[in-house]
C-alpha cells in the first residue's frame, strides 16, 4: 500500500440477505418450519455495493453523495471495519473514528464527563489519552456547567455537540462523518466545519456523507456519487454535484 493512500477499495461488493428468515423470532421459525427452511434457500441477496474501487489519499476529504439507500452508509461501515465485504478488499491505514449518530455510545444516566471518557475509550483511546484531552473537549462543546449533569437532561443539540467534540478531539487518522451536522445551531455548525478544515491541514483523512450538497461542495476535495450500489462518478466536487443535480432534475 502506498504511503499516501489512506483508504483503498478494490472491487468491493457487499451483499446482504434482506430479512434473515429467523429474525421473525423463534416462534415463527418453529410454527412455519418447512416454509421458513425453504425461504433460506430462496431468499434474494441484496447487493448494497457492487464492484466499487476507489482510493482516498491522506489529508483528503472525500464527499459521498447519492439517493437514500444507494450504499453510502454501507461504504462508511466497510471503512470503519464493522462490515466485511462479500468480495473484494478494503484497506485502511491508521486509527479510524466514526462520528456517531446522536447519543450512540453515550448513556443517559452518566454525566457529560463520564460520557466523554466512555465514548473516547469505545472509539479507541486509552483512559489516560482521553483524560489528557478532557478539558479541551469540554471547552469545545461549550456545555458549561451542564458537563456535570446527567445526559438525560441535555437537549438534542447539546448531545450532538458533545458527540462531535469527542470525535474531533481524538485526532483520528480517518474521520467518518455520516450526516450529523444537521443538528446544532448555525454557530456550532460553522465551528465544526472550521474544525474539519483544520483536520485536513493535519493530514487527516475525512469521508463525509451528506445530502446537504452545499456543505459537501464546501469541504470536499473530491466527491463520489453512488447510486444503486455502484460508484457512478468520482472527481471534482462542482462537476460531480452538478451532474447529480442534473440527473435529479431529469428524473
Amino acid at each position, binding site marked *: 500500500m502506498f504511503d499516501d493512500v489512506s483508504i483503498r477499495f478494490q472491487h468491493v461488493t457487499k451483499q*446482504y440477505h434482506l430479512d434473515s428468515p*429467523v429474525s421473525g423470532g423463534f416462534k415463527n421459525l418453529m410454527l412455519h418450519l418447512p416454509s421458513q427452511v425453504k425461504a433460506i434457500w430462496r431468499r434474494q441477496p441484496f447487493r448494497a455495493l457492487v464492484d466499487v474501487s476507489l482510493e482516498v489519499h491522506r489529508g483528503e476529504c472525500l464527499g459521498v453523495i447519492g439517493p437514500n439507500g444507494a450504499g453510502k452508509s454501507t461504504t462508511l461501515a466497510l471503512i470503519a471495519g*464493522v462490515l466485511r465485504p462479500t468480495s473484494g478488499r478494503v484497506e485502511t491505514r491508521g486509527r479510524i473514528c466514526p462520528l456517531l449518530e446522536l447519543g450512540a*455510545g453515550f448513556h443517559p444516566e452518566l454525566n457529560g464527563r463520564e460520557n466523554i471518557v466512555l465514548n473516547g475509550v469505545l472509539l479507541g483511546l*486509552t483512559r489516560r489519552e482521553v483524560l489528557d484531552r478532557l478539558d479541551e473537549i469540554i471547552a469545545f462543546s461549550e456545555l458549561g456547567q451542564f458537563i456535570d449533569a446527567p445526559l438525560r437532561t441535555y437537549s438534542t443539540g447539546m448531545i450532538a455537540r458533545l458527540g462531535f467534540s469527542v470525535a474531533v478531539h481524538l485526532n483520528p487518522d480517518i474521520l467518518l462523518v455520516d450526516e450529523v451536522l444537521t443538528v446544532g445551531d448555525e454557530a456550532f455548525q460553522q465551528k465544526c466545519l472550521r474544525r474539519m478544515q483544520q483536520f485536513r491541514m493535519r493530514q487527516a483523512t475525512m469521508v463525509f456523507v451528506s445530502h446537504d450538497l452545499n456543505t459537501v461542495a464546501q469541504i470536499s476535495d473530491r466527491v463520489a456519487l453512488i447510486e444503486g450500489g455502484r460508484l457512478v462518478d468520482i472527481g471534482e466536487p462542482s462537476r460531480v454535484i452538478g451532474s447529480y443535480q442534473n440527473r435529479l432534475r431529469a428524473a
Partner: protein
Amino acid sequence: MNTALPAVAPPAARILVYYRDLILVLLAKEFKVRYKSTFMGYAWSVMHPLVLAMIFFTIFRVMMRFEIPDYALYLIAGLFAWQWIANTASTANFYFLGNRSLIKKVSFHRAALVLAGVVNESVHFAVSIPVILGFMLYYGKTPRLDWLWVVPALMLVQLTMTFGMGLVIATSNLFFRDLERLVTLVTHLLFYVSPIVYAADKLPPEYNWILYANPFASFVLCWQGVFYGTSVPMVYFGVALTWALGWLALGVLVYSRNVWRFAEIV
C-alpha cells in the same frame, strides 16, 4: 476482507492498557448506572434472593416442615449463587442488542461488552457475601481458612461459565429475537431441578444424574459446600469446571463464527 493498518504500529503494552481500559470503562458505566439513580442500589441487589429465601422458608419450613437443619442458611447459600447465574442469563440477552448503534458504527472488540456484563454480575455476588456471612454467624458458623483459595477459585470458575454462557445468549439473541423468553423459561426450570430449596441427598438415586446434567447444579452444590457445609465437594467442583470450560468453548465458537454479521443484523 478488511485490512486495517495502523499509521504507527502501537506497542503491545498500549494494546493491553487499551483492553484493560475498555473493560474498566464499561464496568464503571454499569456500576454507576445501577447505583446512581437509586441510593438503595446495594439493598436492591441483595433483596431479591433474600425475599425468595423468605418465601421458600415460609412454604417449606413453616408450612411443609422440611427437615433441613439451618434451613434459612441453606436457602441463602444456594440462592445467592443461583441469582448470579440467573441474572447473567437474563441480562446477557441485551449485551449486544442493547448496544446496537455502537455495533453498527464502531469496530471495538464486541466481546468486551459481554465480559464487562458478566464481571459486573460477579461483583454483585461478591458484595453480597457479607450478607451470607451474617446468616452464617447467626447459625453459629464461622468462615474457614480454606475460603482463601476456595472462594476465589469458585468465583473464577463461575465467571468463566457465565462468560461463555453470556457469549452464547448475547449472540444468539441477535438472531432469534425472542430467545429472551426461552432463556427465562429454561432458567426457571433449571432452578427447580437444582438442589436449592431441597437437599441433594433427598433426590432418588436414579435421578442423581440430574446433578451432573444440569449445567448449574454443580455450582450451587459447591457454594453450599462453602457457606453451609464443611467443605467444597471436589467431585462437583470438577463437574463445575467441566461445564465452565464447555460453556466457554461453545461461547467462543458461537461468537467468533457470527461476530462479523452483528452489524448487519442488529
